[in-house]
């Protein structure tokens, strides 16, 4: 049983590490700050989630797991707020995204396509 938990825990830790690595590579490869914020999103959602869950499996049912869960909750409220502040700051600073803004008709068309 301990072995099963250990294997599951390590699988989660490795998955989290790989997601963080992928996010890091994306942050370097993507062209502008807005696209890069998506790669950063992989790190602070998937990467953090898998690593915290893997660590919780290592800790078992204890106060440490409660603390890890609270760290997870904290990340899930603060990370999007920080990302939003960063992106809004870039927008307010006059940095144009390297793509165009869809007008209302195009957006409505895509909404119809999605609902079909």
């Amino acid at each position, binding site marked *: 049983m301990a072995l099963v938990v250990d294997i599951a825990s390590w699988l989660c830790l490795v998955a989290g590490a790989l997601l963080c690595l*992928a996010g890091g590579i*994306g942050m370097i490869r993507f062209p502008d700050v807005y696209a890069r914020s998506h790669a950063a999103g992989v790190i602070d959602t998937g990467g953090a989630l898998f690593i915290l869950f893997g660590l919780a499996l290592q800790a078992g049912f204890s106060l440490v797991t409660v*603390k890890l869960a*609270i760290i997870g909750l904290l990340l899930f409220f603060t990370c*999007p707020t920080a*990302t939003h502040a960063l992106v*809004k700051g870039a927008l307010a600073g006059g940095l144009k995204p390297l*793509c165009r803004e869809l007008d209302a008709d195009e957006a409505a068309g895509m*909404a119809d396509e*999605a609902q079909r």
Partner: protein
Amino acid sequence: MRLVGLYLALFAFWLLMSGHYEPLIVGFGVVSCAAAVYIARRKDIVDHENLSWYLKPKLPFYWLWLLGQILKANFDVATRCVLPGNRIDPCVFRTPANQDTSVGVVTYANSITLTPGTVSMQTWDHEIRVHALTHDGARDVLGGAMDGRVCRVEGHTKDGAEDGP
């Protein structure tokens, strides 16, 4: 009343975080929680909307659904990060947010940001400007599935009709 609730929540949090139950340490907790509540009252940041929103019965189910979406989107964006060639076609667009309360709109905007591949750039009362990494991601947001689910947490559909508790 709300102050008492805040005090109890803070104190429970203190006990969980410390893990020490000697009179001295618990005494420190009593005093610092009282100080935190006093400051919160002076700064007038205790509001009721916040708390009642997070006590909605459907919220845990929404979080579970959101978790599934986050995992799917993570896999998608991570592969686009590492595979060779240009695999992104970003776009910016505005999407409606049909929630009644400001906490509802914030939850929706945060959910968009939490899902890799879409980031909320700017919010108004009932509209959000979103940057999407791909047009497929944009289509998912514009389809309104997530918008509808956050609305149902509030107890109505996104068209404004009543929906059971």
